[in-house]
């Protein structure tokens, strides 16, 4: 079976009525954008893929990642990365420790530190390892959050309105950075957004959902 993320007849239900139904493949390096107004169940779809579906929803269908069926895998064993509109850096850890949290275990201390420093340098944050994340600007936090997720070596990346909190100038910059990094690592990307500009910049297939019942 091919590389990439495949959603096979995935349907999300709330109170027995179907909210959304998606049947789509995302090839490595491609971006699939799902658009639609809030409340349509976009984020719920992502929760299903990460294995954290809230208990008032149910879902059918299968999720395949690089040919493996991960529909029923534990959340932490799926290797599906996700970014939210908030950076969600762990407030009790330094920037470096946040990145170390993402890094898989193993390797010497020196080696791990080197990888963290390299990750920071890659996004222009050299020497930020000891900083308190709360002292960073919005754009800096977004970059750390991205690198933390990439260091965990995910096989797919989900984006949940990832740029909604950033102001216009920063937005394009962070967006390009995220898509560039995902493409260079050949990650299939699934983005949900209600921003047409984000969808256009992604340059991939776009699915538009609406509130009508039955879809």
């Amino acid at each position: 079976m091919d590389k990439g993320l495949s959603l096979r007849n995935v349907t999300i239900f709330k109170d027995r009525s179907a909210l959304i139904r998606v049947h789509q493949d995302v090839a490595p390096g491609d971006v699939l954008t799902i658009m639609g107004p809030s409340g349509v169940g976009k984020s719920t779809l992502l929760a299903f893929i990460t294995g954290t579906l809230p208990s008032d929803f149910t879902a059918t269908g299968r999720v395949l990642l690089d040919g493996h069926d991960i529909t029923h895998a534990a959340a932490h064993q799926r290797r599906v990365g996700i970014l939210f509109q908030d950076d969600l850096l762990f407030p009790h850890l330094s920037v470096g420790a946040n990145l170390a949290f993402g890094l898989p275990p193993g390797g010497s201390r020196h080696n791990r530190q080197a990888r963290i420093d390299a990750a920071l340098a890659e996004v222009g944050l050299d020497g930020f390892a000891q900083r308190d994340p709360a002292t960073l600007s919005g754009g800096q936090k977004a970059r750390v959050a991205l690198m933390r997720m990439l260091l965990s070596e995910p096989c797919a990346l989900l984006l949940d309105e990832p740029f909604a909190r950033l102001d216009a100038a920063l937005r394009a910059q962070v967006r390009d950075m995220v898509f560039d990094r995902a493409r260079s690592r050949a990650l299939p990307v699934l983005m949900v957004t209600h921003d047409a500009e984000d969808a256009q910049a992604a340059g991939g297939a776009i699915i538009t959902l609406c509130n009508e019942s039955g879809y």
Partner: protein
Amino acid sequence: MSRRRLLPLLPALTMLALLGPVLAGLWGTVLPAFGHLPAAGLTGPSLDPFRDLLGWAGLPRAVMLSVGTGVLATVMSLAIVMLVTAGWSGTRVFGVLERLLSPLLAVPHAAAAFGLAFLIAPSGWLARLTSPELTGWDRPPDLLIVHDSWGLAMTAGLIVKEVPFLLLITLAALGQADAQRSVRVARALGYGRLTGWLKTVFPRVYAQIRPPVYVVLAYAMSVVDVAVILGPNTPPSLSVQIVKLMAHPDLSHRLEAAAGAVLQLLLVIGALLVWRLGEGAVAALGRRWIAAGARGKADPVIAGLALVAGAVSALAVFLGLVVLGVWSVAGFWGFPDALPDKITMANWLRFGPGTLQALGETAFIAVVAALVALVLTIGCLEAEYRHKLRVSQRALWVLYIPLLVPQTAFLPGLQTLMLNLGAEVGRGPVILAHVVFVLPYVFLSLADPFRAWDARMGVIAAALRASPDGILWRVRLPMLLRPVLTAFAVGLAVSVGQYLATLLIGGGRVATLTTEAVALASGGDRRAIGVYGLMQTGAALVPFALALLIPALVWRNRKGLRHG
């Protein structure tokens, strides 16, 4: 054993820890109440214990005291808290009062009661400060203020301790009641601040604080330590009489004690039912009041009176602690003098070693009980989170059962049951008995912050390949360090303040600061009481200070957690 298998067991274990002792204790109460006590060679069933109880001449008075003081203390403390909140919430004055009252929550009942006694007694500090100039007294007047036969001093002692409790509960409820906007709308419609609050916010807030109010009523009706320190002696309240009978060397007196415990339980159940009906009556009157449209002309007066009552209540505890401190270092202190002739460390040197030993026992029991409660609480909350359980309002009542069943109804039974089984009384069972009372408060303290934690942090951590245990230990608990430590401090304070559980389940052999302090009540050695009372207060308060200090130090370089 793997944690995966342990976690689902914790909610069941918690239920057992909460309800097991209560149910066993009630069983152990009902049997001897009907004449069945194999340890004393008696087998029932018979109604003799109840006949003996009814034959006691003091019974009507004891029952009246129990019901009267309990209901009055609950009504008064609830009225003070509601009116102060109605008249002042959102103002700077309210902020000050809130900050004054919050630490008082941790002050043990016994210490607050002793402090109050030292203030208002005929030879107390208030009389000394005003004599002979204002009163003309040069010796203590012959008045029965403390231990008065109406139980008014005891009621006051309960009020000053329940006001901070109900205030903090109310503050927690206010956040969810959308209070500010309702009051703003009401004021725009021409209502006074207090009337507007009572007509719009009170019904919602009361619905939320109802369980704690019931706890206050059940507790106030059956309290023992405050009653021993401030309550009448001949006859005492029903609960004190039960404890007296339990302490009698002749085991057959336990039958009458058990009958009294059953009566105590029925009284509390009856009072709770009447209170529930009263709620309906108040609601009906309230609806008529709302429909009549009165805007509240008397608001400023009522708000002023409520504030004075709240301030007096806070001041009584503060000054009480101060006077405990003064007595603990007092040399000779003749009557109308405002202060002792000489300040001396002699009292501390004399009672210090004894208090240190009691402190060790107190601390050991409190730390173990609070730790057990904390582990069970975190286990329950984590199981709820991992298995995506919805906790119903009804399940919440399980937490309140140990606080609603009067202590004097099930603790004597638990002791008797252990006696029948030949189980050893002592430190271990005392700790388990403390857990029964500590666990609900630890749970209620931690549940909201634990559930309010941003679950997306968990999603992110899982996406970063952290296991569920890893998320708990590496992300959730560190982020929740402050509420976890606060809940632990709450648990310690509750355990430190336990009197009856230590006395009865310890079989009189486990000496904590609280049991030692209350035991001093009859002797009236004010210097000893001062030393023990202060130590007891310190044992309850210091953990709270640490719960504030430790996270501030550990996370001193983490701005994101400073207000968490």
